[in-house]
């Protein structure tokens, strides 16, 4: 019984997260200006990280947690670097 509850909840939550990634990709592709695309990329990173965490619950391996941590770190660095690039025209001055 609890296995059925967990499997259904995991499937629903993965479906919702994939929909969220689809919305972020829409904004990444269509975004009228560069800052909208960067915002879409940031949302895509967060949704992908959460999808990896649900995969980790589903499979029972904690290795997915480390991948999610790496994605969170890379997402922060890439968004900060892109924001700096939009502001100044170069990343490292």
């Amino acid at each position: 019984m609890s296995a059925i509850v967990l499997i259904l909840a995991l499937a629903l939550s993965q479906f919702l997260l994939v929909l969220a990634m689809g919305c972020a990709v829409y904004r990444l592709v269509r975004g009228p200006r560069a800052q909208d695309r960067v915002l879409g990329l940031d949302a895509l990173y967060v949704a992908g990280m959460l999808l990896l965490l649900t995969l980790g619950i589903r499979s029972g391996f904690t290795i997915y947690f480390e991948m999610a941590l790496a994605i969170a770190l890379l997402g922060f660095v890439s968004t900060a670097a892109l924001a700096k690039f939009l502001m100044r025209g170069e990343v490292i001055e």
Partner: protein
Amino acid sequence: MSQFAEVPLWVALIIAFFLVLGSGLTLLGAIGLVRFESFYQRVHAPTLGTTWGAGGILIASMIFFSVVRTRPVLHEILITVFVTVTTPVTLMLLARAAFYRDRTESKGDFPPDPARKT
């Protein structure tokens, strides 16, 4: 899937609640990202996904691994703290960059400069 049977039903219901809450809030934020009209409205939407969206799924993961391993598994707090601390920084940088671009090109409807005293 064998370890799913070890989880008691009420714990499974709590885990399912937090999973669906987190992913649903992330999806709401992403829908807001699609549907809001200006960039300054859109920049608020994904924060739903980074606060309670990430929080819900990380709480579910903590409860699940703590029950399965029969010891407290709390390393998900690392991601929670990291995401909660960095999201305002990056989005603030991005909003300032967008504001700077809009102001130098004087186009789009951008809010007045909060730093300027009138």
